[in-house]
Structure formats: structure tokens, C-alpha cells
């Protein structure tokens, strides 16, 4: 599969403060976004995610490295015809109305009047802003501005969409709708690179993730590759069994009890042994599956491990 974005050796430093201290935001970062996939870019605050996105978009000049979009230099004229961008907490001209705003960006993309009108109506419907199309943006809520932001990112029907914190400011229903929009983009064969702190959102839509910390990609891969814990199973059972912890001591890696529900992590070779204990204690077995971390658990373990120098 051809890459939509290839970043090789990206390095960017900033000089900050009165004494112009050098701060390295990104150091020899490599990132590959395959075409037609949804890739998540994760990292703690200050990891270099925004600098990476800004470098891809040409908003900052890297000190070193190459960035190619669909095989072309990212700085080439015309590359931006094929991509759309949603900045974090987008800002617009508050005196424009919703439909006018999309018309403005449509004109910047070289769209004719008929195309702008049709596309604006489609996108306003997609993001649930049809009824607010004639309202001035100064009256829009933060969530409405976020929705308009995704609409303007899609105005030119781009092949590649880059989203920086797409769920920012959205209520749970809005977040679900945003996820549906992103998944629809994938169904249309588009490529999406999204940066987000909402790990549940990333886990729900992304095919793969790249985790950035202190300016470098620390881990990358599909969610199955990263989150499935090899050679371990997770058993879920329900019932009342005092003393189960003692019974499983030495066998289980972890026992989490929520009310009458037990979630037990065991090494694969000792799974049957654990199942035997649960049966003896009279618990009802609900499921046995390969142990899988949540993205949040994996992310926290990775970042904290990096901090400790593991």
C-alpha cells in the first residue's frame, strides 16, 4: 500500500525565552501513514505531535528531514489541493455566517459557485449544522465551531485529512458523530491522520497508532500488535467466592473484582488451572479471551516506562 505521508528524520528545534534556550521539539522522527488507513498520533503534552503536524502542513520549517505527501515534496505547490486540515480548536472570522465560511474556504480551493453551494450544503448536513448555516459564527458554541472546522477541512473533498484533536469541545453525542464521520472517510478510501488525547476515540477508529514522546516515535503498529499481551489470557467470571484471591495467588497475574464480576489475567499455560479453581468455587464463566490492554493502559505504561528510563 502506497504511503500517503512519509516523514523521514524530521528534526525541529525552537529557541525560547530571553536567553534563547534551544528546545528540541522533534528529533529524527520517522512516520509513515499508509494510504486509505486511519492512523492515530498519540503522545503526552509536549511530545512533539503538534510540531509534527505543523511540519507536515508547512506551518513550520523543519531543521532537517524530509516530508512527502503522496510521493511529492510536502512543500510542492498544489499538494494542498489533495489534503484537508482541522487545526486544534479552529478559529474563524466571527462576522461570517456558517455557509459563508464554507464558501470562503471553497473559493480558496478554487471551487466554482455551484460546487461550493452543493458541497457546503452536504457538509453542513453531515456535521449537523444545516439549521445554523445562516447564523453568524460569533453566536456559535465551541462545539459548533468544531463541527464547522471538520466541514471546512472536507470542503475540497481531499484524499488526505489531518485532524488535530477532532473531538475537542464536543459532547458525547458529538464525539460519536465525529467518529462516524471519520469512519465514513475511510469507507470512501481517504486517509486520515488524527492526533488526539482521547484514547477511547483513537481506539474506536484507528487502524494503527504512532506514539510520540520527547520528540520521537516510541512505538507504532496496529492496535492488535500493540495491545494484545502475548501468551496471556483474560478470564471473566461472575459469582460469589470469598477467598478467591488466595486461591489464585501464584497463578493469576492480576485479579480485578467489580461487584460479583471477576476479571482475571493468567499466563496462557495456566489458564486451565485457573478455570478449574473458578469452577470449584462455583463461579459462572462468561468469557476467556487473549489478554488485551486498553490503549490507555498501554499508553500510560509506555510513557511512564520512558520516564523511568526502562
Amino acid at each position, binding site marked *: 500500500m502506497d504511503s500517503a505521508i512519509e516523514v523521514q528524520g524530521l528534526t525541529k528545534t525552537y529557541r525560547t525565552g530571553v536567553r534563547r534556550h534551544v528546545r528540541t521539539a522533534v528529533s529524527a522522527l520517522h512516520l509513515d501513514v499508509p494510504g486509505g488507513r486511519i492512523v492515530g498520533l498519540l503522545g503526552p503534552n509536549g511530545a512533539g505531535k503538534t510540531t509534527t503536524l505543523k511540519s507536515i502542513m508547512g506551518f513550520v520549517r523543519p531543521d532537517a528531514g524530509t516530508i512527502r505527501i503522496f510521493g511529492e515534496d510536502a512543500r510542492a505547490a498544489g499538494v494542498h489541493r489533495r489534503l484537508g486540515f482541522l487545526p486544534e480548536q479552529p*478559529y474563524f*472570522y466571527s462576522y461570517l455566517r456558517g455557509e459563508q465560511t464554507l464558501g470562503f474556504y471553497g473559493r480558496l480551493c478554487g471551487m466554482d459557485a455551484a460546487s461550493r453551494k452543493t458541497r457546503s450544503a452536504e457538509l453542513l448536513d453531515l456535521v449537523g449544522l444545516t439549521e445554523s448555516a445562516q447564523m453568524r459564527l460569533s453566536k456559535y458554541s465551541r462545539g459548533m465551531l468544531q463541527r464547522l472546522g471538520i466541514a471546512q477541512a472536507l470542503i475540497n473533498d481531499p484524499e488526505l485529512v489531518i485532524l488535530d484533536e477532532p473531538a475537542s469541545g464536543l459532547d458525547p453525542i458529538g464525539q460519536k458523530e465525529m467518529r462516524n464521520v471519520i469512519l465514513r472517510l475511510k469507507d470512501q478510501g481517504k486517509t486520515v491522520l488524527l492526533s488526539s488525547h482521547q484514547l477511547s476515540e483513537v481506539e474506536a477508529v484507528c487502524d494503527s497508532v504512532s506514539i510520540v514522546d520527547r520528540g520521537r516515535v516510541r512505538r507504532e503498529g496496529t492496535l492488535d500488535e500493540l495491545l494484545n499481551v502475548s501468551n496471556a489470557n483474560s478470564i471473566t467470571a461472575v459469582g460469589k467466592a470469598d477467598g478467591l484471591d488466595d486461591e489464585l495467588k501464584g497463578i493469576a497475574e492480576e485479579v480485578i473484582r467489580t461487584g460479583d464480576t471477576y476479571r482475571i489475567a493468567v499466563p496462557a499455560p495456566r489458564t486451565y488451572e485457573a478455570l478449574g479453581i473458578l469452577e470449584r468455587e462455583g463461579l459462572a464463566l462468561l468469557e476467556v479471551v487473549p489478554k488485551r490492554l486498553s490503549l490507555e493502559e498501554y499508553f500510560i505504561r509506555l510513557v511512564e516506562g520512558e520516564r523511568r528510563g526502562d
Partner: protein
Amino acid sequence: MAIRTLAVNVFMDVVRKKALYVLVLFGAALLLAIPVIPSFGLGVQLDLFRDLALGLTSLFGVVIVIAVGVNQVPGEVERRTVYNILSKPVGRTGFIVGKTLGLILTMAVVMAAMTTMSVIGTAVYFGRVELGLYAAGWAMFMEVTLIGAFVVMVSTVASPPVTTMLTIAFYFVGHVKTALLAPLVREGISSVVIAAANVIPTLENLNVNDLAAHGAPVPVGRLALLTLYALAYAAAFTLIAIAAFSRKDL
């Protein structure tokens, strides 16, 4: 289309902010000037009115071009609206050219309006339609075009207050440069220094108010030359602005 869209957006923003209401102030100033002009002979009074009108037009023009131009680039960067624009196939060159052309478009409307009000003033109070004032109006429009390009250039690297101060200094030096250099030229200053001094345009080259104030026609050749002069400097400033903005981290 992108450059035109950005240029029109600049003008519409000025209209929306009601900045053009300053033209009302200009008109009021002209009206108030009539009783102030001493009662000499009609010809002298007319000369004085033309001089006053052209002086006010020049002053208002410079103030407006600085006020409108100083925040065109920094404002977009600070408000972060620049990201949405530059994410589209516009490019940093298109952005700067669009902003500069928008400022020029705005000043064209402003200068045309003020000159027209002056012509109407002469017609109403002196019974004469002084179309010659449009030649001076064109020269002043060329001056504010050059100044506008300078404002945009400086604003790509400096804050609005610094840009304002530098532009005022630029305007002042541009008008007194010849007088400042004259004694040095007589003493035989090196041509290198003179060449360096020409980095700042001689704004007096664009001044035809003395001719127009006395009702004398402005030669077409002179208008053409000053137009080329102003546009050459404006183009140079715009190229520098593009180069500076292209290197800027946003």
C-alpha cells in the same frame, strides 16, 4: 481566485468594521474648513481650498493605510485563522499578495472617495468642477500603495506598534530625504551612500499637490513615471514580505 478572495476579504473586513466612516470625518473636516479660509480673492481662496483638501486627503490616506495594514498579517497569525487559509492551496506567496492587494483595493476606494468629495466641494462652494484634483488623487493613491506594501512587509516580522512607528519614520524620511541629503551631496558624499539611501524611496517624487493646488495640470508623463516608481518599490517590498513570511514559523 484565492488571491482575489483574500483581497476582497480584506476590503469587506474594513467595511464591516466601519473603518470607512472615517471618510465622514474627512468630509466634515472639509466642510468646517470653508469658513476658516481667509476672504481673499476667489482665485486665492480656491487655491487655499484645494491645498487644504489635498493635504487632508494625504494625511487621512496615510493614517488609514497604516491603521488597516498594520494588522493584516499579525492579526491572522495571532487569531490562528491563518492555519485554515494556509491549509488550502493558497501558499504563503498567495497569502501575502492577497493581503497587499486587498489593502491597495481598500485604499483605492478611500482615495477615490476623498478626492471626489474634494471635487464636489470645489463645485459647490466655488462653482468649478476641478477634475485636475483626480491627478493629484492618483499620485496620492500611488503613495499610499507604496506605503501599504511597506506596512505589510514590516508587519511580517514586527509587532503592530513597531510597524506603526517604523512606517511613520519611513514616511517622514521619505519626504525629507532630499533635503537631508542635499548638503552631503554638495560635499561630495560617496555614491555608495547615495545608493544606500535610495533603499528608502523619495516620497516627494510622488507629490504633485503643489501643481494641483494651483490648478496647474499635471503632465501625463510625470504621472506615468511616478506610477512606475511607486509600483516598483511596492513590488520590491512585497517580494521581501513574501521571503520573510515564507521563513516564519507559525
